[in-house]
């Protein structure tokens, strides 16, 4: 079949033999114009009755009617705070009108100028929220409260000069809001600027747009003492199965910040593609990126890391190895380095070299493999300076190594035969050798994370991977006995158990009939109720708090990319966020009212979370879930 080059400008000669087609073209001129929405006088108002916002007709004989937005702020435990504070807190039952121009920054006490600069950026982010609220509000409502003289001044007190968020960062804060006359003072005290940032985030949840009155409104009084239950609260995003653009990652960080999540774990590479354009090894992205536009440059990652830090989020990069590596690694022979990866793009059907297409596993007996890894690590260290590094380490199948002469010969030379145990030995050899390369780059004090795997299950019994050095990320199910084994061996744990915290489950299969492998879909309720204390108690363990670092919801991207990622991550991630920040003894029903409101609030900030209920439920609290 011949293909012909066509330029749009050459498509000139269109002859149409009916005049009436012209009429259709006229219709095309129709343009959707922004329109001023005619306000109607709604017959509805609200009352706060028994901690619920109840919709009532204004014609009913009552006097204490309030708007829905005011009601949400002052009614019910915790108002609209998400996640709920863990310390003592108290909210008032009054609101005042406010103009965003009247929100002034009065005082900052901080020990160093780096922190001053960070706080300034954090304040800009906060102002951005109010701008969005107002922008949206003014589309609909005639501003009534705009002439208010009320002023909000903000005082911030910070103790430490800490300028990069890490696992060790003290994220606690206290927030006081007091109103006298036409002046409200909000004071935030925190050890670090990252704690203060959480305070600002909380403050933003005490303010909303009132669509009935056409003004920003604000809680007049609050006392909140708050600190997270777990230090590691995150989202994992896979950027290799499908590419996620830099722009989208920045947007995701905005969402994490709203949820007080502090960790974005990037599953940067997999067998499918290698989107990181490493400065030292440009061949990786050349051979492995889906297209020249589906890459992250060194500068992209640097920008991402800085953007995240301002929003209280740290980035943990993962280079998955030795399995889940293929595309991007094919250039070795051409460059005289031998095979860096084996069975690349082989189908799992041919010899069971992997679980899902495409196959690919690193060549652990080629020293260049480690050199390349070290170069990639070095670029990542310089771009992101992470306080922890993720080495992947999941789903190794031995068939490919077992069918490769280079491997089996090396094993023979090193006194190994070809039993399963010998292959575990080879895997440990890979793990130890690549760890040395991590040490060279990140230093020996940087903790390293591995996914649960047949290896971690084995070492939990036999040793060999230092529990002082490795953190294990549990993707096994919540009842898998590998969990107590790892715990008792002394590993610190991060939970992403597949039966509750996987965001990709429940869609149609991408390798055959039926649904995908971890179906069904995990609802926000299941995510919220994934209580790690409860989970450990299921194994008879009262966990040492220092050993359970927290968790991550996992967004594997076989069936998601920029187009639909918001709705798959949110609002469910917010459920995980409250579990990890507040870790309340209560279950999801307790959180429903606030959760549904938080989803609406996130929409306003551009995070297009999925709807979990008809909007009717948001307007009629307590009616929907029975």
């Amino acid at each position: 079949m011949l293909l012909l080059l066509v330029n749009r400008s050459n498509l000139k000669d269109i002859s149409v033999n009916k005049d009436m087609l012209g009429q259709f073209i006229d219709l095309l001129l129709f343009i959707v114009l922004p329109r001023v929405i005619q306000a109607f006088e709604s017959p509805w108002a609200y009352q706060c009755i028994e901690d619920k916002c109840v919709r009532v007709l204004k014609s009913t004989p009552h006097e204490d009617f309030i708007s829905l937005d005011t009601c949400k702020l002052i009614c019910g435990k915790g108002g609209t705070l998400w996640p709920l504070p863990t310390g003592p807190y108290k909210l008032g039952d009054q609101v005042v009108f406010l103009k965003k121009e009247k929100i002034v920054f009065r005082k900052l006490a901080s020990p160093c100028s780096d922190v001053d600069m960070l706080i300034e950026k954090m304040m800009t982010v906060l102002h951005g929220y109010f701008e969005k609220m107002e922008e949206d509000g003014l589309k609909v409502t005639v501003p009534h409260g705009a002439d208010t003289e009320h002023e909000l001044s903000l005082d911030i007190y910070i103790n430490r000069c800490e300028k990069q968020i890490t696992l060790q960062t003290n994220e606690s804060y206290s927030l006081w809001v007091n109103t006298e006359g036409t002046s409200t003072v909000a004071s935030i005290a925190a050890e670090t600027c990252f704690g203060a940032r959480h305070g600002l985030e909380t403050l933003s949840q005490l303010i909303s747009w009132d669509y009935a009155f056409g003004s920003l409104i604000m809680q007049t009084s609050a006392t909140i003492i708050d600190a997270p239950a777990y230090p590691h609260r995150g989202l994992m995003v896979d950027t290799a199965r499908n590419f996620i653009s830099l722009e989208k990652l920045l947007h995701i960080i905005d969402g994490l910040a709203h949820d007080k999540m502090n960790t974005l774990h990037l599953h940067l590479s997999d067998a499918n593609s290698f989107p990181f354009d490493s400065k030292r090894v440009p061949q990786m992205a050349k051979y492995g990126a889906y297209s020249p536009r589906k890459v992250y440059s060194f500068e992209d990652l640097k920008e991402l890391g800085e953007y995240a830090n301002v929003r209280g989020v740290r980035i943990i990069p993962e280079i998955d190895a030795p399995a889940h590596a293929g595309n991007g690694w094919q250039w070795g022979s051409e460059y005289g380095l031998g095979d860096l990866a084996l069975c690349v793009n082989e189908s799992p059907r041919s010899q069971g070299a992997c679980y899902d297409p495409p196959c690919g596993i690193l060549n652990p007996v080629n020293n260049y493999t480690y050199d390349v890894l070290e170069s990639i690590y070095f670029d990542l260290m310089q771009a992101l300076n992470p306080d922890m590094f993720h080495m992947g380490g999941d789903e190794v199948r031995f068939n490919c190594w077992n069918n490769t002469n280079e491997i089996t010969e090396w094993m023979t030379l090193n006194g190994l035969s070809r039993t399963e145990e010998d292959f575990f030995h080879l895997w440990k050899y890979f793990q130890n050798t690549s760890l040395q390369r991590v040490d060279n780059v990140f230093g020996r004090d940087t903790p390293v994370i591995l996914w649960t795997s047949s290896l971690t299950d084995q070492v939990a019994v036999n040793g060999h991977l230092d529990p002082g050095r490795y953190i294990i990320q549990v993707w096994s199910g919540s009842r898998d006995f590998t969990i107590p084994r790892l715990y008792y061996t002394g590993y610190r744990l991060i939970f992403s158990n597949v039966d509750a915290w996987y965001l990709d489950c429940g869609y149609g299969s991408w390798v055959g009939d039926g649904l995908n492998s971890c179906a069904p879909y995990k609802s926000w309720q299941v995510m919220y109720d994934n209580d790690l204390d409860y989970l450990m108690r299921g194994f008879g363990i009262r966990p040492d708090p220092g050993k359970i670092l927290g968790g991550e919801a996992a967004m594997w991207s076989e069936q998601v990319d920029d187009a639909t990622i918001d709705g798959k991550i949110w609002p469910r991630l917010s459920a995980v966020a409250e579990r990890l920040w507040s870790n309340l003894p209560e279950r999801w029903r307790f959180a429903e009212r606030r959760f549904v409101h938080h989803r609406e609030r996130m929409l306003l900030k551009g995070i297009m979370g999925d709807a979990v209920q008809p909007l009717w439920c948001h307007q009629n609290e307590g009616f929907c879930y029975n």
Partner: protein
Amino acid sequence: MVDIFRGYLVSMEAYGGIEPTPSNSMIVVKIDCSQDDIRITYNTDESYELRITQELGEVVRVSITAPTAFGVRHALETLSQLAAWDDLAGSVVLVNEVFVSDRPFYRHRGLMVDTSRNFIQLGDLYRTVDGMSYNKLNTLHLHLTDAHSFPFDSPSVPQMAVYGAYSERKKYTVTDLKALNEYANTRGIRIVPELDGPAHSAYGWQWGPDYGLGDLALCVNRLNRTNVCIGPPCGIQNPVNENTYGVLELLFSDLKEAFSPDVFHLGADEVKFGCWNITEEIVDWLEDQGRGREEVDFYYLWGYYQNRTLEKVDTVYGNIPVIVWTSSLTEENFVENVITPERYIVQIWTESSEPSIASLYNKGYDLIFSNSDNWYLDCGYGSWVGDGNNWCSPYKGWQLLYDNDPLEILANQGILNPDPQRIWGGEAAMWTEQTDGGTLDGKLWPRGSAIAERLWSNPPGKWRTAEKRLVHMREVLCLRGIGADPVQPHWCHQNEGVCYYE
């Protein structure tokens, strides 16, 4: 239509992102269209022929022949699928020798979008129409109202939206809908409006007493739902209040102004008799009619409602066909005495194994398929009324949608050679309890493409024969601004035939 086609080429070049390689190729398009229909209806001939021939080196002739403008539109759509941006060539390329003779298998190929459970902004509806046109779907069924909200801002009965819209901005004016309808028509799509009744009616209907018209709806927001209604929220129209029909007639004529539809959807699903049974006004009326309070009496009442409503439809629209959903009524053996097969089309939302499908066919009803086991787009998410996942879980993958063959469903129930005129086609149903603008695209697409091929081509093959093209179609949708969900890693698009196992 031609301008829309040009727009596709513009977006291809924009995707390329570079100055295209210079080319002297000249494309000459000739369109022959013999009929002067300017509105698409269920009777429109959508067939077309498309020919591309290369002559004299760089001149390419495209010839389109179709009886109607809507067939021409489909041909242009096909033509756009024969062109693409080519990275290596640095240009848009077009296949140079083509002959396509094409017509749809079914006349009614649609999507249903519920705009009541959650409001769908106009911009999202426009984009949905765009997506439908790329897939040669021809029917957008708007489930305009339900118990939750009443977003239609009727000029004759403004109270409906005042009481029932979620907010000032969550409503459609007649002008809005009229413009949407024009936009859709230009893209070969007709809009079928639905006003669901007597059940699924609550918000928007509460103003009757305030305006001296009595209760137009009953049991609105009633908490104890057992046997009273399907909810939340509760609510059912008052069939013995004459004003209910007056309001309906006004709504019908406002909708006529907006859409001038060629069929009208009356809903009529999920009627529970509990509410009527506890309402004095209803019970008294039944007594006056010499009726009791048995199930058969309530069916009589429901039939009365349907007949009175149909009269109003006739007054406003003339005798156009009306559609109702399957319900407990359509399962009854006396259904044809209540709603006549001459006037009513039944839209099947019951599962494909439900034997009433065959019996409805045998009673003489025309059928539209939306069986919930395969063509519901809202299934598989967390419950919105309690624990677990929602009622029609699991999620319906594109494979299921593709393989759902109405003729096979009928054949399985013993109807081997149905009258093709009576099987109108089908619709994928996007109920919106758990969807609004932010996630609509990903739930509609690319699964809407799967049902589109089933309804247009009705191929003998199952989904595996379509995989490669479906995966590519998803990329095309994204390129044209539809946020379709990916069904596979991009690797599968670049490495055909390796991902799906036999």
